[in-house]
């Protein structure tokens, strides 16, 4: 990787005006010094493969276009994460597996092969994650990358939107191995805080996970579920929701029901997209760049 600044400059020169940049850290505005260990990853979310309906007339094409856009990034990420709702729910276990197989086949076209998957409630809540595990492995796990400790949390395999005592104990034991200033990134599907409980945009025992994370100075959470960009702080912990890749949803609590926003023929794929996250290890900061589905 030459330099993340070069990549940013390239994007700016390319005139991609729809790209937004957010400093996803409690330490914004620091001088950038792209070190050898700085890296970036891409987050895709809520692809809902199998959904059909007016909110997305290109339901079978959107994910493929997003994969092509990721592949077209001038500098490829170190890895890619999918933060849940890979597939749209179905009562039929055979159909669920068919959707997972199709999804897996489509994303196998990603140039980067280091891909991490998390379940969403559409993938895992009706069978406690059984099909998901068959196709994608464990529903919660950790991995380390260039000094950052990543923790994938499962708040969907229990349909009650619970992380559960067993997983919380696992989280607590994992965190005991970390330094207080270790850079920690949590990847999950639902918000860990009460974003909009009247829309079920919460994790019932999410506060317990946040409490376990609170003693650590450098924690950032990336999640999905709400099909839109959103940023929130619980004390010093930043939480960043990602756009989806099937249909956007209204702003939290802005209307009685959380119905998908209508497709706009004048602006197809509006509200959909993916993001890159630049990790700047020296400052334990993350720079978020939002991308549209189709590369401009």
């Amino acid at each position, binding site marked *: 990787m030459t330099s993340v600044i070069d990549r940013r400059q390239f994007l700016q020169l390319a005139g991609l005006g729809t790209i937004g940049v957010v400093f996803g850290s409690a330490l914004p505005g620091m001088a950038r010094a792209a070190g050898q260990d700085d890296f970036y990853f891409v987050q895709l979310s809520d692809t809902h493969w199998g959904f059909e309906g007016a909110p997305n007339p290109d339901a079978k094409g959107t994910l493929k276009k997003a994969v092509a856009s990721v592949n077209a990034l001038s500098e490829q990420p170190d890895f890619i994460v999918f933060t849940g709702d890979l597939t749209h*729910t*179905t*009562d039929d276990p055979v159909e669920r597996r068919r959707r997972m197989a199709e999804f897996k086949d489509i994303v196998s076209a990603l140039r980067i092969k280091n891909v991490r998957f998390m379940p969403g*409630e559409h993938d895992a*809540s*009706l069978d406690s994650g059984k099909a998901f595990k068959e196709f994608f492995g464990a529903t919660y796990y950790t991995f380390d990358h260039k000094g950052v400790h990543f923790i994938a949390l499962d708040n*969907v395999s229990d*349909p*009650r*939107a619970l992380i559960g005592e067993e997983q919380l104990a696992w989280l607590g034991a994992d965190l005991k191995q970390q330094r207080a200033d270790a850079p920690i990134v949590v990847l999950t599907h639902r918000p860990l805080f009460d974003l909009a*409980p*009247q*829309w*079920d945009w919460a994790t*019932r025992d999410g506060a317990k996970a946040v409490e376990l994370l609170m003693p650590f100075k450098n924690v950032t959470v990336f999640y999905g579920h709400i099909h839109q960009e959103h940023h929130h702080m619980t004390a010093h912990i930043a939480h960043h929701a990602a756009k989806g890749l099937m249909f956007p949803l209204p702003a939290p609590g802005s209307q*009685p*029901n*959380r*119905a998908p926003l209508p497709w706009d023929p004048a602006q197809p794929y509006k509200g959909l997209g993916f993001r890159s996250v630049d990790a700047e290890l020296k400052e334990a900061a993350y720079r978020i760049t939002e991308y549209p589905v189709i590369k401009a």
Partner: protein
Amino acid sequence: MKLNARTLRIAAGAAALGLASIATYVAAQPAQPKERIIRIDAKRFDYTPGELTLKKGEAVILELTSRDVLMGFNLPEFNLRADMIPDKVTRVRFVPDKTGSFTFLCDIFCGTKHEEMNGRLTVIE
């Protein structure tokens, strides 16, 4: 006060009875205004009834059950939630303390139209 053996046996028996004794005591009190019972049935993907109107300050007993799978009844603005269990009635006492229109929703993922499984509570003066 010196307690004789019989008094001690009565006291020990009362302690052993625990909650049952308390319940009996409550039942023996002068009659309270009877709380209205409201039964709410859930099935994928709606509630019956889907709209409730209550008076502020009126105590009611919600009797919650599901006709098919495990569901949730969540009324976040009142910090009230309960499971709706097939073939079992869950009773929840509820006294709305504010007026307005509020959403109640299923908070246990139950299938394709889970996100649409909402009801509305209106609380009037």
